[in-house]
Structures are given as structure tokens and as C-alpha cells.
């Protein structure tokens, strides 16, 4: 059978990061092809390369046997490719029909449109593919699942023969997901080619004909879904080259610091993000939380830090040293001796325009030691920043005048970790992806400091998508899947697992997919 898409040695670099490394891939016409991989494996970049949103640095691409090179999505659309993005791109005040025909009105500017005509053709299109949605309804009144159907209609209306869907089920309820799958199968039956980007292995096996696994920008393998298993895919996804080894002496946990009981969270739109999450963390232990992004980690962290979406519905309890911290503000929670290293460092943890010293006290700037009289004690702040920067090996000569944004990502992260670990009276440390985008040297440094904080008696919650990191550091590991903790690995299991290496990583990987 002929190939709808054929990629040969496609590469793309962003700065120094190789998002796609010589990716070669063939997708049969009329098939459903899935691309799976962890976050940052390069799946979305690959989709964007095909759709003309990025230009490849090297390699070639053929669509239906013809070599192509798209300068923009418009050219990809003209070649019969359509993409449904993870975040929908609809105009909420316009109707479904208007959104679908937007840009293809087939009328000259300032000439009246033909709303009935276009509504009718869209109605027929939606009937044909089982995409039930009212063409005259304003998009603002639709549910998320219906919005997605409008996006698919848009693509079909443009006569796309190849559909790319980026994480299409991320925002859907299980019912909506099964409807989507039925519809995708009927589209494939019509001869359309479907490329679906996801990290949910169950869905891949239920839907796709072929699956390509990506890891760190490269293709690990392409398999027929009939001949593979979840276990095999998980192993291929996780495949890590560098296993970090760090001295991790056994810990001696003390009193319970944080205890989360039956925590649940439901968004205003009714999506269940967390359900009956229960765990506790004792002082002097690291509780690792494994999970693929989007399984409730960010919601859990925002609840713990008091910045969750207040329109959502919360149930259960979060007890810090026995006192309920539900509904407290970040400032109040921090004052209890809680530190957070958020995942998105640039957006949430620092002010890049402030000096390094200014960032070294950010969030802790209310502490008395940094003040003198009316304003800051600038000498003390600068000295503190220099000392702490020295301890954590932050490469910066002039803490007062260098803006933080001028440092490398690794050094920025060291500033954040240093500041949060050095909080006076630290009792609970929450770390989210503490070494993401950080070079190997800095990773080691940060890992050593985390173990150090644990030995000083802090309770630590470590959320990471790097399984090797979790295994190397954690005392216990909880596996988060679809908003619930599926399994908690005991200290013995983790200790044993650390010795077993690879097989344990796979076992852990399986419990989160």
C-alpha cells in the first residue's frame, strides 16, 4: 500500500536542544498511526514539522509520494493536511458554521455571506462522519468535546486527506473519548490517514494500526499494534541512556509532616482531575510521585500551594502538622516552613528582569534579616546571595547587577533550589521537575542538595517525569495515574528496585501508563 507520509532523516534543533534527531517514518495511506513518547520526546515537534509550523533543519518529507517542503501551515493545508491542536483555535462568538468556513467564505470581501448554504453543507458533513453538532450554535455554548468536533469539521471542510491530532483526548471525558475513536475509525475507513500524538498507551492499542515510539528526539521503533504490548511500549518509551547514580544513604523518617487524605478536585467544567488521593510524608523522607504529565500532578501541586482554580470543586483534606491548610494563600503556607520549586521556573519561580540577588530572596523577601529601616538591607542581601550562590555553585560574578535572565537555565534553577532549600525552618519541600532542562553537572549538584535537605529533617515531595531521578532519590514512590494514586512502592521495594535497575524502572513505568 502506498505511503501518505514518508519522512527521511528529519531533524530540528531549538537552540542547543535537538527536538528531532534524524527521524525517519512512513505512514500508510488510510491507516491510523500513533506517535507515543514521554514529554519532551519530540512528538509535538514532529507533528508541527509535518504541518509546516516549523521548518526542518535537515531531512526530506514526501506527501503521497511527492517531495514537499512547507513554509507555512497554509501550504500544508493546500497539500491536504489538517491538524487539530491540543488547544482549540476557535472564535467563541461565532457560530459553528462560521468557524468552519472562516477563511473559506467563497465570497468577495464586503459581499454578503450565505449562512444557510454553508450551514447545510456542514450539517451534511457532520452527518456523514457522525460528528453531531449544531452548525448554528455559537461556539461559546459548546462543550469541550463538541469544540473538538468543530475543529475536526474545519479540517474535513478543507478536504484534508491526512489528519494530525495532538493529544486529542487530554481534555475529553471517557465517553467523549470513545465517541472520538469511533469517528476516527470511520474516517480511516473512508481512506483518510490519521496521525495521532499521545502518551496514553491504552488508547494507542485500542485505536491505532501502527505505533511509533519516540524518546529524546529519536525514533526508538515502529511496531504494528497487533504485535506489541503495553509492556513493550513502556520499555521503549522509558529507555534511558544515562542512569544517574547518587550516594543515597538510608534515611530515618520521623514525624508525619504532610498528610493528604482523600483529596479530590473537579474543575468548573466538571472534569475530575484528582480523585481520592491519599498519602503522607514524614520528616526525613523523600516521597516521589511518578506520573505522566496531565495525570493530576499540576492540580495536586497547586492545591498544596494554595493557588488552585477557585472555581473548581475540592474535597478531602490536606493536613500540615495536623492543621488543615486547605484554602490558605501561598504566603501563609510558605510561612509554615514550606518551600516550592515549581515546574515552570521562568514563569513561576523567578523574575528574569530582577538581579540574581533580587531573585535569591524572591518569595522570602519578607524575612527580617533582609531589611533595615525603611527598605532592604542591600549589603546583607548581596552578601547572602553571594554566599548561597557559592554554596550551590551558581556561576555568576556580580549578583547585584546581573539580571537573572542572563544566566543559563541550570544556574537559574540552582538559584531557585538554593533559595527554597535555605528557607529558615524548612519543614516541607515540594519539588516539581527540579532538574528539567538542567545540565548533568547541575543535576548532580541539585540531587546532592535534595538528599542533604532530607538528612536535615525536611519532608520532601518530589514530582518528576524522570523515573531514574525518582528511583535514585526517593524513599517511597507513589504512582499517579488519571488523578489517583494507583500504587505506593514501599521503602524496601524502592531500595531493592534501585539495585535491580532497569526491570524496576519498567515496573514503575507500567504503573503510570
Amino acid at each position, binding site marked *: 500500500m502506498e505511503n501518505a507520509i514518508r519522512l527521511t532523516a528529519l531533524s530540528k534543533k531549538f537552540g542547543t536542544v535537538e527536538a528531532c534527531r534524524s527521524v525517519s517514518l512512513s505512514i500508510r495511506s488510510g491507516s491510523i498511526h500513533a506517535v507515543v513518547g514521554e514529554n519532551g520526546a519530540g512528538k509535538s515537534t514532529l507533528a508541527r514539522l509535518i504541518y509546516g509550523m516549523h521548518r526542518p533543519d535537515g531531512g526530506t518529507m514526501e506527501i503521497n509520494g511527492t517531495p514537499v517542503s512547507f513554509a507555512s501551515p497554509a501550504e500544508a493545508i493546500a497539500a491536504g493536511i489538517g491538524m487539530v491542536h491540543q488547544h482549540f483555535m476557535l472564535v467563541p462568538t461565532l457560530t459553528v458554521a462560521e468557524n468552519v468556513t472562516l477563511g473559506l467564505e467563497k465570497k468577495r470581501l464586503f459581499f454578503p455571506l450565505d449562512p444557510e448554504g454553508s450551514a447545510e453543507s456542514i450539517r451534511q458533513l457532520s452527518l456523514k462522519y457522525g460528528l453531531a453538532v449544531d452548525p448554528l450554535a455559537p461556539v461559546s455554548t459548546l462543550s469541550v468535546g463538541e469544540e473538538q468536533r468543530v475543529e475536526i469539521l474545519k479540517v474535513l471542510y478543507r478536504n484534508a486527506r491526512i489528519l494530525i491530532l495532538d493529544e486529542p483526548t487530554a481534555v475529553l471525558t471517557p465517553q467523549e473519548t470513545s465517541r472520538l475513536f469511533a469517528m476516527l475509525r470511520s474516517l480511516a475507513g473512508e481512506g483518510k490517514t490519521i496521525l495521532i500524538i499521545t502518551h496514553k498507551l491504552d488508547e494507542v492499542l485500542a485505536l491505532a494500526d501502527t505505533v511509533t515510539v519516540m524518546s529524546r528526539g529519536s525514533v526508538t521503533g515502529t511496531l504494528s499494534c497487533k504485535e506489541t504490548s503495553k509492556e513493550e511500549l513502556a520499555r521503549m518509551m522509558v529507555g534511558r541512556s544515562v542512569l544517574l547514580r547518587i550516594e543515597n544513604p538510608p534515611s530515618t523518617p520521623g514525624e508525619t509532616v504532610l498528610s493528604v487524605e482523600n483529596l479530590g478536585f473537579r474543575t468548573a467544567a466538571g472534569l475530575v482531575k484528582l480523585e481520592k488521593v491519599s498519602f503522607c510524608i514524614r520528616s526525613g523522607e523523600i516521597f516521589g510521585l511518578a506520573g505522566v504529565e496531565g495525570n493530576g500532578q499540576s492540580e495536586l501541586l497547586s492545591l498544596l*500551594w494554595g493557588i488552585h482554580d477557585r472555581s473548581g470543586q475540592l474535597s478531602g483534606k490536606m493536613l500540615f502538622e495536623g492543621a488543615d491548610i486547605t484554602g490558605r494563600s501561598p*504566603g501563609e503556607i510558605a510561612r509554615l516552613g514550606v518551600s516550592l520549586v515549581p515546574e515552570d521556573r521562568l*514563569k513561576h519561580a523567578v523574575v528574569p528582569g530582577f538581579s540574581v540577588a533580587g531573585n535569591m530572596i*524572591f*518569595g522570602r523577601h519578607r524575612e527580617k534579616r533582609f531589611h533595615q529601616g525603611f527598605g532592604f538591607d542591600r549589603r546583607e542581601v548581596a552578601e547572602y546571595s553571594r554566599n548561597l550562590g557559592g554554596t550551590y555553585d551558581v556561576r555568576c560574578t556580580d549578583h547585584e547587577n546581573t539580571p537573572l535572565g542572563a544566566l543559563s537555565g541550570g544556574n537559574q534553577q540552582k538559584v531557585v533550589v538554593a533559595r527554597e532549600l535555605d528557607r529558615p525552618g524548612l519543614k516541607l519541600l515540594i519539588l516539581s521537575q527540579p532538574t528539567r532542562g538542567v545540565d548533568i553537572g547541575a543535576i548532580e549538584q541539585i540531587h546532592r542538595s535534595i538528599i542533604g535537605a532530607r538528612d536535615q529533617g525536611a519532608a520532601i515531595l518530589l514530582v518528576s517525569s524522570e523515573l531514574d531521578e525518582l528511583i535514585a532519590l526517593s524513599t517511597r514512590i507513589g504512582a499517579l495515574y488519571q488523578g489517583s494514586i494507583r500504587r505506593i512502592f514501599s521503602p524496601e521495594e524502592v531500595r531493592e528496585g534501585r539495585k535491580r535497575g532497569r526491570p524496576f524502572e519498567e515496573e514503575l513505568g507500567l504503573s503510570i501508563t
Partner: protein
Amino acid sequence: MTARIFRLFIPLLAVAAAALCSMAIIALSGRDPLMICEKLFRATFASGYGAGQVLFKTTTLIFTGLAVALPFRARLFNVGGEGQLQLAALAAAITGALLPESLPPVVAVLFSAFAAMAAGGLWGASAGLLKVRFGVNEVISTIMLNFIAQATTGYLMSWRFAEPSTGHTAETGGAFMLPQIDDLFGLFAGSPANISLLIALGTALCAALYLFRSRAGYELQAVGLQPEAAKYAGIQSGRHVTAVMGLAGAIAGLGALNLVSGYKHYYEAGLTGGFGFSGIAVALLAGANPLWIVPAALFFGLLEYGGLAVGAYVPKDIFMIIQALTILIVIVLNARKP
């Protein structure tokens, strides 16, 4: 590094470029630009009276410029300086007219200052509250509040406070008048320059200390630069938004000291004459830096008075063109990617 240095020189470049443009416009209007420059210089810095006039304008512009610059640091655009100044001027004039003249001068002036700051501050803070509580864009609310201030002062004047057949409020007692620089130091003879210039300089200094040295300024800038991170750091941005808008209104209000207590000693329609709006230009030229506000205000003060002084030779409108050009050039240069 070079990009940073370039940014420091943007205001100077803009002023120079705008000056060149206006030279060309003057030449086109059939006048010799160099002659106009000479006249301008003679009418302003070369004469004590002219220099005093320039400084008088500069004083109000420092206040209204600061009123734009401080909120700007929290990414708020206070277009309401004019309304804040108007209400404050009326409040200062009424205080002076109603309170007994026998008060000691320091107390009397403090009363006026307090009334002005309270009126302007309330007006500014209400824009902040509207933003925090209801999400009303501060540009829209301050423009609307300008209209309300304009109408309210007009109403209060015609129905209550204007002296019959004069169109202005009763003159304040002598205790409420700020001394002229002429009286104190014998400088700028006959000009309206008064010691509120010193208050303006002090306010600019305090504003710089607040912004660059205090915890409140540190938090305010974090709210402006990285609002999400500020939230994570436990900074309550709503409080800062309301407070800085109130503070800005109060500072704009202090401008009333210059106009009322230092110069006219009463309120009349048109007294504030667009100073609130020129403050926006001053703040933009100064890059919202409280200390740079002073030279920026001086430049615009020079143009405002200089335009009047050489009005016999070239239309004053040319100076409005220079002001606007300067700001446009600043914005264009700042928008350039480094």
C-alpha cells in the same frame, strides 16, 4: 550589554531627532529655525522670569509624570492624572477658602496638601479598586473618571463655590499660600515658580526610594514583570494595584499645591490645562524612572512655556508637534528589537 547602554540613550536620541524634525517644520513654515532657537533660549533660560516660568510648568509635570510612572511599573496605565489633579486643585482651593486664615502657615499648607492628596488619591484608588474587584481595564476607568471629575468640578463651581461674576473660587487666605522662589532667594523675578518645586523634587526622590529600595516597590515591580511568579511568591497583586493607583492619584494631587497654593490661590475652570495628560508624555520619555522624570519634565516644561514665548513668530502648535514626535520616537526606539 550594548543593548542596555543603547536603551539609556533612547530619550536623548528621541529629543534630538524630534528637535531636528521640528527645525525642518519651522523652516517649511518660512522661518529661520536658528533664529527661533535663539528667541526660545532668550525667552526661557536667558531670563530669570522665563526660567521661572519653565520651572513652574516643570513642577506640575514632575507630579503628573510620577503619577503615570509608578503605576506603569505594575503594568498599569494611569490616564487619569488630569481628573485626579482637577479634583485635587478644587479640594485645595476650597480648603483654603473655607478654613480660617489665622492658622499657622505650615498647618494651613498641610491642610491643603492633605485635601489635595486625599481627593486625587481617592480618585486614583477607585480606578485600582474597579480593576481588582471587577476587572475593569484601568485605561477605560481612568478616562471615565476624568469625565466625571471634569463634570463634578464644573458643577461644584457653578452651583456652589464660584464667586459671583468671577468664575473662580474665593481667594485663599495668606496662610495657605506657598512662598515664591523670588521672595525667598530673589531668583526668577516675577515668575510663578514657588517652593513646591522643592516638594516635587523630594517626591521624585521618595518615589525612587519606594520603587528601588523598599519591599513594596520590589513586590510592585514583580507584579508588573512576572505576575504569575508574584502570585507564587505570595505577593497579593490586588493590594498593590489599588495602593499604587491611590498613590499615583495622591501624587498627581500634590500638583495642585503648585497651581493653587503656589500660584493662583484659587480654582478656576481650565487651571489644570492638560498637565495631567502631558504627564503621560513625561513618564514615557523618562522610561517610568522616577529620577529621569525630573529632566523629562524640564524638557516638556521648556516646550510648553517656550511655545508660548515664541508664539509671535511660529504657531504654538509646532511645539505640540515636537512633544508628540518625541514620544513617538521613544516608543519606536524602545520597540526595536535589541
